[in-house]
């Protein structure tokens, strides 16, 4: 089972290492990881996507909360949060294929950010699942290079049910 964790940390040296070291010790493979600033200049957000069962996850969340620089750990619950990812991909595009590829891109709102004699670079920002779909769609055309930022997320502004918390705050 995959989980997305949103971890607010003090912007201090080695804090990323302290957090990721906990995952490494437990033998969890981090599927994606994104780190960046938040609205507060001294607070960063680490978003980690990890594949594990719920009980070891709870254990690692409690361990994380014991780290001095960790301010809050929350799981981004699907349906109650917005998750986004940015993908850049270079696809083989000889002149006779260009139009077809650009039409595919339009369906996914992927932007063409560079165009060469035999390749196109697409930029796609969206739900990670859309990025997966677009990637699969263009792959048969000759996917030359691909990079993804890893997902980031926020709790929804409007909650479907006001009695439920926007995010499951774990520790």
């Amino acid at each position, binding site marked *: 089972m995959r989980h997305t964790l949103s971890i607010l*940390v*003090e912007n201090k*040296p*080695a804090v990323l*290492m*302290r957090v990721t*070291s906990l995952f490494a*010790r437990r033998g969890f493979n981090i599927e994606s990881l994104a780190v960046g600033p938040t609205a507060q200049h001294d607070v960063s957000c680490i978003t980690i996507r990890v594949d594990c069962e719920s*009980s070891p996850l709870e*254990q690692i969340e*409690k*361990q994380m*909360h*014991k*780290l*001095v*620089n*960790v*301010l809050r750990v929350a799981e981004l619950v699907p349906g109650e949060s917005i998750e986004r990812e940015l993908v850049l991909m270079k696809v083989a595009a000889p002149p006779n294929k260009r139009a077809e590829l650009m039409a595919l891109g339009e369906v996914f709102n992927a932007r063409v950010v560079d165009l060469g004699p035999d390749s196109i670079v697409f930029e796609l920002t969206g739900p990670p699942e859309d990025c997966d779909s677009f990637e699969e769609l263009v792959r048969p055309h000759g996917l030359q290079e691909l990079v993804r930022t890893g997902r980031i997320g926020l709790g929804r502004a409007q909650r479907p049910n006001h009695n439920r918390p926007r995010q499951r705050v774990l*520790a």
Partner: protein
Amino acid sequence: MRGNGADAILRSLEAEGVDIAFGLPGGAILPLYDAFARGTTVRHVLARHEQGAGHMAEGYARASGRAGVAIATSGPGATNLVTPIADAWMDSTPLVCITGQVRRHLIGSDAFQECDITGITIPIVKHSWLVQDVEELPHVIKAAFHVARTGRCGPVLVDVPRDIQEAELDFSYPETVSLPGWKPPRRGHERQILAAANAIAAAERPILYVGGGVLNADATEELRALAETARLPVVTTLMAKSGFPETHELHVGWPGMHGPKWSNWALNKADLLVAVGSRFDDRVTGKVSAFAPGATVVHLDIDAAEISKIRHADVPVVGPLKPILARLTQLVRESMQPGRTEPWLRQIAEWKDQFPLRYNPEGDMLKPQLVLETLQELTAGRDDVVWTTGVGQHQMWAMQYLLCDRPRSFITSGGLGTMGYGIPAAIGAKAARPDATVVCVDGDGCFQMTQQELATSVLEDLPIVVVIVNNGYLGMVRQWQDMFFEERFSQINLTHTVPDYAALARAYGAAGFTVESADDLEGALAEAIACGRTAVVDARVDPREHCFPMIPAGAAALDLVEFQDTVAEVTT
């Protein structure tokens, strides 16, 4: 107050009430040692190896309840502290390590004696700091002590580049710490404590399974009040030994791999397990699914991460043990039916009579168990004896035969199982309790890992008694090879005679005794304990003796292997 960073460190230690620090100087920590020479109220004990300094600080912490302080230089000095740091991490010992680091402009350049000690220790510290600005230094030291001692105790590390130690600042010690992410629980939840009280009142076969947390929480009185109020039997883990009086009728031994049969049976047959500051370590549980299989679990702990980590807790209570136990006792007093646990206590007492600790006292050689029995007889009733141990068979015999009534009187390496812990820990304990008689029960293998600290003991006037249960082997390894590797003994023969431990002791300026027969044992031990100076007793014992009973690793408690009258002959 104007001064440099090194002065600031010492003024900070003084402000924290630190009376003693253990360390060894070197290049990157020279400015701090210069500040020591210029004057401070902090006594410095010069160890012979940084590992020794670290274990001394641990022994001091465990004997006193205060944070121990260890100081080392950069590079190899710092890496020699890694074992004590890991040990303190596993056993939740409050330890503040201060290490020198190369000058800031050299960091990352592979400079002489440079190593990334904050990076190396990340998995085994509660927190660490690489100080980048001299103005931060007092705040960092303040935070270091705060983190080491609050919540679940443990080690912290402060790495100070040499140029920071030399930089000038106006020193003032902060009164508060600002750590927005550090929020240890401050009280247990009343509803959970009530649920725990109800579980205790409803149980027919309850048992308190007590861990080292009770000593760290300074909650031994509260524990005793709870046990006596509800008439609950108590088992104490190795880390909790001395946390509940062991001559008390409610003390029913020690759980786990080398615990007596009656203790393990009591745990196994219990219908309620009240875990108090204990963590269901594999050496206690054996096969987890067979550990107290019919019991409801109440788990009291300061560390939320221990709840349901190994064993599901039906009633978790997270918070400081002292007030939780006090409140729990209050609630139990109101709801408990008098006499409810008496049949259960009688049952355990019957088991105790039925399955005593046994060994064969006959034979041509001195028996190791007799050494421990004699030590117990010689010190029974004394409340001024502090024991430390190394790790192995002698440690387990010490657990079984020494009865400790006074809190913090048994100091050992539990979780990490650090051979060589005993001698330096004893020196640290002596520093914390100068009036106590500190006895290190050691193995011959352990002794040779940290024997150099005998010099520290002698020269720093911190006399200790070391009793070597010398079987000439890495005894516990021998036992495992005998029992689980078809008697294929491999790389364990240390010999009884090399070195000559008594002569070695004398070479260090300590008293040395060699004991080879039961007749000489009591006299030598009594003389060593009474002599008032550092003494080593080399008790040469039968290497064929195994530590029983034993629950093989991963086995169920009821599959415990008992003492057998026939033991394999020595083959090497």
